[in-house]
């Protein structure tokens, strides 16, 4: 913002026109405009490929819903990054574990009828709720055997990042071993017909459910962080770990709760992603780049920013599928990530910078 104010006409400074243009481009409003223009270009490209207006609108709405899932992962990444100060490359595997965990739990339970208008029954809901503590436990075990020894030795950031990459490979291999490499479905063959909405937008009831649940979980997370003692301690530890220790905050307990919250959100996101598409051992890995992109677009350390960033990434990915093979989705997220890093590395809502 400060840079823009300095651009006021009549104010002379030593900078050349070129430098002033660059400074104006590297501001938060400019980043917002650039991201919006990217989405507009995607729309136009989609239209060129023959997508109708209602198709594009539907894709946009689906994109916002995919954004809800991505946001759940991005919030966890942001929390872990804030408190433990490393990018957790194994976060995608927590998403996958959540999806498969719910599959196994719901298969063990007696199957009930579908809860109309949704395609799933109560047993999947139970699976979703139970998979959250199970994945949290897995995350705590990984922390205990892998990250905690590194913490006690004051290891460098690179070591933590590499260790999390190793954890990702290990967990993914375990998923292959247990569940195999085939695509799986919560309800094979069960259809969830689309609901017609105004403007020709077609949305499945399941997608609406997924989005609604994502919003509820984000609000609960916000409440936990802003209003509870442990949530405040998490923010305090992320803000100033040394002072947190001086104030008598037990850092190990804060770290444990950070994993529990982050893993629970990832697990819920995984079940929702599995419901919206299908279960694959790489499903979480393919969400990792969009999750990182959303966290950085929104600005690391800001849950509200995570939602905004995730929605932008989700819409871009979905709309791009009207002119690109959907397999390029993570590539699209990568393009947006680069735009942000070049223009305004603090993201849309991040702290620091201007």
């Amino acid at each position: 913002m400060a840079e823009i104010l300095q651009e006021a006409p009549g104010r002379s400074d030593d900078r050349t026109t070129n430098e002033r243009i660059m400074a104006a481009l590297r501001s938060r409003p400019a980043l917002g405009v650039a991201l919006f223009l990217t989405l507009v270009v995607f729309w136009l490209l989609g239209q060129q490929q023959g997508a109708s207006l209602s198709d594009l609108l539907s894709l946009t709405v689906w994109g916002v819903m995919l954004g809800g899932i991505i946001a759940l992962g991005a919030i966890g990444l942001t929390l872990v990054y804030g408190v433990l100060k490393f990018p957790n490359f194994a976060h995608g595997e927590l998403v996958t574990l959540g999806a498969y965990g719910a599959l196994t739990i719901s298969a063990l339970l007696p199957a009930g009828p579908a809860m109309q208008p949704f395609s799933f029954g109560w047993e999947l809901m139970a699976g979703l709720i139970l998979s959250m503590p199970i994945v949290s436990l897995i995350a705590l075990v990984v922390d205990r055997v892998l990250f905690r020894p590194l913490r006690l030795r004051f290891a460098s950031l690179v070591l933590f990042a590499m260790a999390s990459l190793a954890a990702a490979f290990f967990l993914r291999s375990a998923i292959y071993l247990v569940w195999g490499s085939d695509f799986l479905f919560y309800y094979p063959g069960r259809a969830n017909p689309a609901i017609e909405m105004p403007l020709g937008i077609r949305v499945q009831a399941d997608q609406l459910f997924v989005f609604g649940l994502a919003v509820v979980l984000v609000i609960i997370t916000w409440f936990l962080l802003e209003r509870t003692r442990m949530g405040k301690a998490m923010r305090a530890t992320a803000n100033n770990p040394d002072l947190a220790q001086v104030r008598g905050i037990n850092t190990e307990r804060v770290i444990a709760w950070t994993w529990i919250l982050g893993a629970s959100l990832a697990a819920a996101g995984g079940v929702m992603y599995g419901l919206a598409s299908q279960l694959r051992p790489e499903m979480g890995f393919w969400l990792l780049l969009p999750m990182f992109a959303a966290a950085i677009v929104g600005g690391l350390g800001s849950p509200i920013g995570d939602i905004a960033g995730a929605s932008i990434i989700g819409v871009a990915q979905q709309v791009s599928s009207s002119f690109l093979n959907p397999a390029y989705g993570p590539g699209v997220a990568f393009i947006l990530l680069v735009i942000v890093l070049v223009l305004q590395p603090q993201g849309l809502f991040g702290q620091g910078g201007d």
Partner: protein
Amino acid sequence: MALLEVRGVTAGYGDTEILRNVSMEVGEGEIVSIIGPNGAGKSTLMKTIFGLLHPREGSIIFDGQDISRLQPYQIVERGMCYVPQVANVFTDLTVSENLEMGAFLAKTNDIAARKERIYEYFPRLKERRNQRAGKMSGGERQMVAMGSALMLEPKLVLMDEPSAGLSPKMVGVIFEQIRKINEAGPAILIVEQNAKLSLEMSHRGYVLASGENRFEGTGEELLNDPEVGRLYLGG
């Protein structure tokens, strides 16, 4: 018996020894200043007392217990709080949340009442309780830092250079508050560059130079000692 007793402590980082055989004590309800030139090891002594650094030799006795091997949170639990010189507030948290974090270990439910007491010391903080601490002035931050340290109603508060970076007027305000806080109960151990002002307020003082005790006495004695004056009080 003294509340805090530092007995022949030697400490440092890596291969460097910063403190050598330092001994000192703080009695119940006392204000004690540690003065000395830059690099004398004043801050290191604070960190060693608070468990951020462990002594290589010697011991630190607080309230009758040896605390020289304890972690900071265990020392906080025993009733000692620390106000660091820099980065001493959670900049992303509000004033009110900063105070709550000061009482993280409190096992009581009267956090609100304790906050009110801090607001009595520092009325300015009450006006700004919902503001993020990062957006406040240096003096106000110092108030937040001191207020957070008082939330646990400690027996001893360590203050590392409370006057650093403040305007002369604000230094007066802060020192006046330190005196009031002390009258209400806790003993205070201050490390200060602003030696004169600090000694005037203190019951006793120590002069630390090159990691060793050089002088010790009441605040007045040190202020009037010609050698201390020449060396450390600027004439």
